[in-house]
């Protein structure tokens, strides 16, 4: 733990979708560095419940759906009411959608747009209010290599991630004068439920094409996010950091 002293002085990170996978790794990473963390998901995982029991007042969780505008605003309001500040926001909540665009149902497309893009925009709007008032903060959007390179079968998912990168660049210019930084982390393939749905052959093919020869761990992605969210990345804004073991190089 790097931050000590009065609990009210501890920085606050908001992590969307923190109950499992990369979200849970992000929660752990910020907690390990002495931050307070607020997260939400549709339901708490057993692993998150363990953290909630162990961390006491440094970790809060609220039930919310990443596609619900009212739920996201209520969550952000609850965080600022309780801790009076938000130092970093990580827009991590997301969902995948594989298949041919020509055959996708409209309600499936809407669901991905709502969670991956609209939810991230609305949560960012709610959280940067606190940052503007304080004149400090950082936002990290979890993008994807699919937002940087084209891949068949993930058109809608790719569209949402590329859109997040667009928001990153524009918001970096908009909020830079208020000392608020905005960046994206574009992970390659890492051990997660989404990758778990790939066939063994598909996973082996990704590993073969990755110069580092393996998938990332969620903790490795979380470290890159922490670097950009914290003062370690104090002169970096408007950038997309690809963390993919060299897959797209």
């Amino acid at each position: 733990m790097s931050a000590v002293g009065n609990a009210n002085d501890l920085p606050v990170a908001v992590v969307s979708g923190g109950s499992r996978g990369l979200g849970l790794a992000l929660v752990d990473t910020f907690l390990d560095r002495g931050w307070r963390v607020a997260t939400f998901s549709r339901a708490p995982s057993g692993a998150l419940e363990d953290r909630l029991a162990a961390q006491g007042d440094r970790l809060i969780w609220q039930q919310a759906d990443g596609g619900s505008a009212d739920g996201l605003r209520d969550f952000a309001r609850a965080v600022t009411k309780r801790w009076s500040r938000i130092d970093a926001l990580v827009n991590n909540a997301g969902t995948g959608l594989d298949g041919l665009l020509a055959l996708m149902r409209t309600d499936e497309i809407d669901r991905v747009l709502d969670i991956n893009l609209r939810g991230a925009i609305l949560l960012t709007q709610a959280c940067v209010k606190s940052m503007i008032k304080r004149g400090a903060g950082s936002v990290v959007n979890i993008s994807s290599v699919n937002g940087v390179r084209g891949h068949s079968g993930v058109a809608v998912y790719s569209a949402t991630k590329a859109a997040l990168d667009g928001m990153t660049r524009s918001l970096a210019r908009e909020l830079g004068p208020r000392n608020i930084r905005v960046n994206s982390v574009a992970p390659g393939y890492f051990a997660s439920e989404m990758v778990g749905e790939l066939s063994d052959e598909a996973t082996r093919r990704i590993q073969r094409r990755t110069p580092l020869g393996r998938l990332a761990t969620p903790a490795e992605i979380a470290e890159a996010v922490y670097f950009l969210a914290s003062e370690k990345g104090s002169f970096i804004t408007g950038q997309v950091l690809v963390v993919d073991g060299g897959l797209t190089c």
Partner: protein
Amino acid sequence: MLEAIGSMDRVASAVRATIAAVMAERGLDPVELAAEAKLSDTLGLKSMDLAQIVLTLEDELETDPFQAIPITSIRTVGDLVTAYGVSLGLIDAAAPGAQDMGAEMAAARQRRAGRRR
């Protein structure tokens, strides 16, 4: 009526105090915050300064008029005071100078009700 006048006084004081605080933070010269003073041309505030003022007032007055009223309709200190007066129901939305804001808020309420249906 006396209570309403008192409340509008409070709103006007809060708006002016917040504008003054943000101007001081930006290093702008203090000037009299007359109702007709233009936020941009006269006071030198930028759009992000206005955002900071609105966010601070949202905490203090517990309302955000700009979910209904376009922020682009706000030009002067008086416009800002009126917007909060209308939003808080302290000014008749049909009163001179507030009609446009009243109409915008009524239309926004209708849009929200339509989305809920």
